[in-house]
Structure formats: structure tokens, C-alpha cells
């Protein structure tokens, strides 16, 4: 049976579609990773599952329950962490736990203390939450999510702000909860490498649509190697590549870099190809595929992002594959102010799902950071 399921779930804010007929299925006992860019609809999907956002159409099912009252009752078995941790800053960790536990009818203080210890917090620490570091807040939020022994955990960026040791602890905790206590986990994260270490199923959201659902075994096949070329003149290089490669066999990475997936054309062939066309090549290397590249490729690569810079050269190489079409190019991108009360910025209403409204920067900072990191790592 599916622990969580949506059928044709659609949600729009002020006429802009944020979730477009999304159908996901999270099987009981699995760890499901939700992947997508900022504004892809991950948080909105999670909000809809948790009853915080009312979908325009479609169906939500939790442990088979679909009616509003049954869903409400099933949600009592869900522990969640969404956006910033829901904590009262004027209370200490234990009082925060008590406050939420009381609302669920849980009065077992030793159990609450045990949960705090489990996430690495001192239950007797009188320090108020307002003086906590982001990592400590995140740990406390995870402990709160575990109150009442939930059967399902829905976590939006659970390792956000944690140090490497904290990330490791949370990862192990999630693994243990899943393997020992058979808790179903839906987890969304930007840290794809982290997600890859715990999840066994993935759903890829792009532009409000579910681009693909895959198992971890499918992902291994997608982590394909490629030839990476840093060129001096991207416009000229793209003309050469377009003549020699099928559209789905190359991708544009940041900083005048191209990823060529057709390995029948090896490094020397590529070097000769550019040399013959008088395109300066600054660096050329063969790279092994990784999870990040596979996800970026599944999300439509970085074409759309770069095209947003209004450079004509990119327009010639507009989205080509089916998956790229699913990813809305900048001109049609859902530049939406999601907040129905015009104070989204004030309240950071939708967290990572808040879409850039400037209209000129479809590629987000995270992508830049990821891409920058990738380039730096390669160097």
C-alpha cells in the first residue's frame, strides 16, 4: 500500500500554476527523495500533503484515506519539518517539546527528553531557543517531528544548517527510523549527494510537474560519464557541437563549459573537432557521472537558465528533449508571487518554493553555487 499518494494534484496561486497534475506515490516503508529546483513545487506539494495548502483539484491519499476527516486523522501519524523550524523562541528546547506534545495529548516528559538526547540536544539545557544556532534549531525541529511516534515523516530540507557531523547523525537517524522502526520518509533536499545516500526512490519535480519517478537502481544508469570542455568562444563552440552531436547528447554548463555525453567521440576527437573549427579550447577532460549531474540532466540541464541571460546564442539551442520541454523556459517560467496576501517577502511564506519575481534570473543562486562548485571541483 502507498503511504502517501497524490493523483493529478493541481495548485495555483493567483492564476499561476505551481503544481500541475502531480501524481506521486510513496510506498510504505521507503525513503522517497523529492528533488527539484527552487520553485519547482516541492514545498507546495509537501504543504498540500500536510493540509496546509488546499489544492485546486486532484486527490490526496494518506494510508489509503482520502476524505477530509480521515486525512485529518491520518495526519496525526505524520511527523513533519517544513520551511524554518516551528519553534517558540522564548522557550527552551524541552518546553518547546512540551508545548507541541500537549497539543497531541502526549505528556510523557521522559520520552520527550529521550527524543532530545536522540538528536544530540541536552534536555536539561535552560538555554532559550532564540539563542540556539541554526543547526540546534534544526535538531530540535526533528525531535519535535518525532513526537508521538509518527509512522510517516515528511521532511523539507532536514539537514539545512547542520555541520557535517550533524548531517551524518541525521542521516543515520533517518536510516535507523526507516530500517528499524519501518517509518516511511518523504524527504526533500537540495543536497543531492545526501539525498542519494538515504533515499531509495526519487520524484523529480520541475516547473510544477512531476518529470519522473525513479528507483535508486534507475539512477545508477543515469550517472553516465561525459566529456567536459571549457571553450573560449561558447557561441562558436555550440555551432560546432550542434553539427556533430544530437541535441540530447550535450549540455551547457556555466562558465563556457560544455558536457558531451556521446562517448563514441572521445577526448582527442573532441579536441580535433574544435581545433578544426578554430574554436579555442581551454580545458578538456573526461568526467565520471555523478548524482548531481544526473539530476540536473533530468531536470532539463542548465539550458533554460543560461538562455535567460538573453544571449542570442542560447536561443538557438532552446530546450530540445521531452524532459527539457517539461522544464519551462524563462519566457514562460512561472514567475509567481505565491502569496495571496502580498506579504510573501515579509513572512518568507513559501520558503524555497518562492519564485524569483524579478523576471530576469531564472537560474537561481543554488544552481549557480552548485555549478560553481562543480567547476571548482573539477579544476
Amino acid at each position: 500500500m502507498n503511504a502517501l499518494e497524490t493523483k493529478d494534484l493541481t495548485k495555483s496561486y493567483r492564476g499561476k500554476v505551481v503544481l500541475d497534475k502531480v501524481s506521486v506515490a510513496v510506498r510504505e516503508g521507503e525513503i522517497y527523495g523529492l528533488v527539484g529546483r527552487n520553485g519547482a513545487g516541492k514545498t507546495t506539494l509537501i504543504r498540500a500533503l500536510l493540509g496546509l495548502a488546499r489544492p485546486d483539484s486532484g486527490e490526496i491519499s494518506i494510508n489509503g484515506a482520502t476524505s477530509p476527516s480521515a486525512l485529518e486523522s491520518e495526519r496525526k501519524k505524520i511527523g513533519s519539518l517544513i520551511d524554518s523550524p516551528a519553534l517558540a523562541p522564548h522557550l527552551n528546547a524541552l518546553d518547546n517539546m512540551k508545548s507541541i506534545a500537549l497539543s497531541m495529548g502526549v505528556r510523557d516528559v521522559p520520552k520527550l527528553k529521550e527524543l532530545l538526547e536522540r538528536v544530540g540536544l541536552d534536555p536539561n539545557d535552560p538555554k532559550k531557543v532564540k539563542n540556539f544556532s541554526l543547526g540546534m534549531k534544526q535538531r530540535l525541529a526533528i525531535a519535535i517531528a518525532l513526537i508521538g511516534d509518527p509512522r510517516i515523516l515528511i521532511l523539507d530540507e532536514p539537514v539545512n544548517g547542520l555541520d557535517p557531523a550533524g548531517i551524518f547523525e541525521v542521516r543515520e537517524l533517518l536510516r535507523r527510523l526507516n530500517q528499524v522502526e519501518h517509518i516511511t520518509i518523504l524527504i526533500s533536499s537540495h543536497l543531492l549527494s545526501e539525498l542519494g545516500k538515504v533515499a531509495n526512490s526519487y520524484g523529480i519535480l520541475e516547473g510544477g510537474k512531476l518529470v519522473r519517478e525513479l528507483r535508486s537502481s534507475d539512477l545508477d544508469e543515469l550517472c553516465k560519464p561525459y566529456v567536459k570542455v571549457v571553450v573560449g568562444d561558447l557561441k562558436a563552440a555550440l555551432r560546432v557541437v550542434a553539427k556533430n552531436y544530437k541535441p540530447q547528447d550535450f549540455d551547457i554548463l556555466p562558465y563556457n563549459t560544455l558536457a558531451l555525453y556521446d562517448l563514441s567521440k572521445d577526448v582527442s576527437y573532441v579536441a580535433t573537432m574544435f581545433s578544426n573549427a578554430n574554436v579555442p579550447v581551454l580545458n578538456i577532460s573526461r568526467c565520471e557521472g555523478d548524482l548531481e549531474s544526473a539530476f540536473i540532466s533530468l531536470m532539463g540541464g542548465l539550458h533554460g537558465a543560461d538562455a535567460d541571460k538573453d544571449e542570442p546564442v542560447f536561443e538557438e539551442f532552446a530546450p530540445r528533449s521531452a524532459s527539457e520541454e517539461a522544464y519551462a523556459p524563462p519566457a514562460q517560467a512561472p514567475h509567481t508571487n505565491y502569496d495571496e496576501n502580498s506579504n510573501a517577502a515579509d513572512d518568507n511564506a513559501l520558503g524555497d518554493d518562492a519564485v524569483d519575481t524579478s523576471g530576469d534570473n531564472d537560474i537561481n543562486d543554488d544552481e549557480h553555487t552548485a555549478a560553481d562548485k562543480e567547476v571548482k571541483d573539477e579544476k
Partner: protein
Amino acid sequence: MKNKDFAFTLSSDLFRLKKLKSVTVGLILMVLIIFLTFAVCWVGMNLVSRIEVGEGAPNEDGVYVDENGDPVITQLEKDALIRSFDDMNKGNLMSSGAVASIEFFVMIIVCIFVGKDFSNGTVRLMVSRGTNRVHVFFSKWVSAAVLVTIYSVIALIVSGLLFSVKGNGFSGRDFGTLARCFALEWLVNISTMSIFVMIAFLCRSSGSSLGVSIGSYIVLDIVISVIATVMQLSGGNTDWMMFMPLQQMTVASSSATLNATQLCAVIIMPFVYIAASIGISLGTFLKRDIK
């Protein structure tokens, strides 16, 4: 389980409300205000009691003067002054709810409490864990009503104690008036609280709900006073004033006998405002997405 759900939510809300510093600060300030109000009476009584009574006769203006033509206070005037301070002392007890400025403190606390629960994500967490939105709303409303009741009772007890310091008798009739005033002030405070709960649920953050509440509190008072003054000058009726939002306290705290219009204003209008504010805030809360 459904019935217990509300009790669970309420106990959680009361737990957080109890831990809110502004509740204690508000209480201390309220007691201080009550003390100062009574202290003014005591000082007045002391000053009057020290006045020396003089012999004299009324001049052509009706003012009592001595042989030199200087004004003097007669025993009659002194007694009247003492009586007026005594009445003021009793009036302070009767209008303990108004004297204590409960509606002002409740406005601040409700805005902070509800606003914080929204901005901290407590409401979000409760709803995401299957708590019914109606329960979430009424739990906050009941918590605020409990706060009003506690403040009202404390204000009454403190006023009673302070009245007893210099009070000059308390008849059975006075007790009846006190009970009526307390009940009406409590009802008016509950209706005022409902309006502020509504504002907090609509604004969903402490800062903005406080701003809107204080703004509406002041603006409404000024606008109504200006219109009433203009109407009064032109000889019009100003009874409509007491039917306006947040304007019932003056009548509710009056120890004088109330006429039918006044009774209607302090009994029916609070219920109208309670129903309207609950309807608006609950309707909006049920319909809106939660951030």
C-alpha cells in the same frame, strides 16, 4: 478522541500563554495602574481633610468669604469634597475593569500570542499534525478569554483591597452594582478581545497585528469623538456612539442606573461584535492556506 483534541490544543495554548513574558508584565502594569488610580483619591482625601474650615458669609457671587473678603471653605463644602473623593474611590472599584485598562493589555498580549504562533510556525505544525483548524481557532479564542477573565478577577480583587484602605462603607445595593458592572465590563472586554483575535488571525504576525490593533483603537476613538462633538454642537443625538465598536466600556463601567438604550448597547452589541469577529476570522482561517 475528537473532543479530547480540543482539550489537548487548549492545554498546549495555555501552556505557551503562561510562558509568555508579556502576560506577567501586563499584570504588573495593570496592578500599578489600579494602585495609582486609588492613590490619587487617597491623596485628594488627605488634602481635603487638612483644609481648615472658616467662618464666613456668602458674597454677591455666592462664594463664602471671611471678614477680609477672602474666600473660605465651609464645613458643608469640605464634606461635599470628601464625599466626592469617597464616591470616586467607590467608582474606581465599580469600574475596576475599565480602570485596569484590561482591553489595552489584552490587545497587546493577544496580538503577540496569536501572531507569534503564526510566525513561529506553531499553527502550521498543529494543523500539519492533524489538529482541526476550528479547534486551533477556538483554542486561541478560549485562551484569550481565560486571560481576560483572570485579568478581570485580579483587577477586581486588587481594587477591592485598595478600596478597603480608605473606603467608607459598602451597602448591599453597592454590591449589586459591583456585580453588574463586573459582568458588563467582562462581556465588553470579551467582545474587544474577539476583535483583536480577529485582527491577529487576519494579520498573522505580531508586529502587523499590533500595529493594526493600536491604530484602529486610536483612530476609531478619535473619529467617533470628533463626529460626536460636531453632532453635539449642532444639537444632534450622540447615543449611537455607544453602539460603535470598542465604545461600550464607558457605559458598562458606569455605576448609574442604565436606561434601555444603554443596556442594549452593553449587552447586545458585545454579542454582535463577538459573533461578527469570530465569523470573519474563523471563515478566513478555514479558507486560507497556512504559511
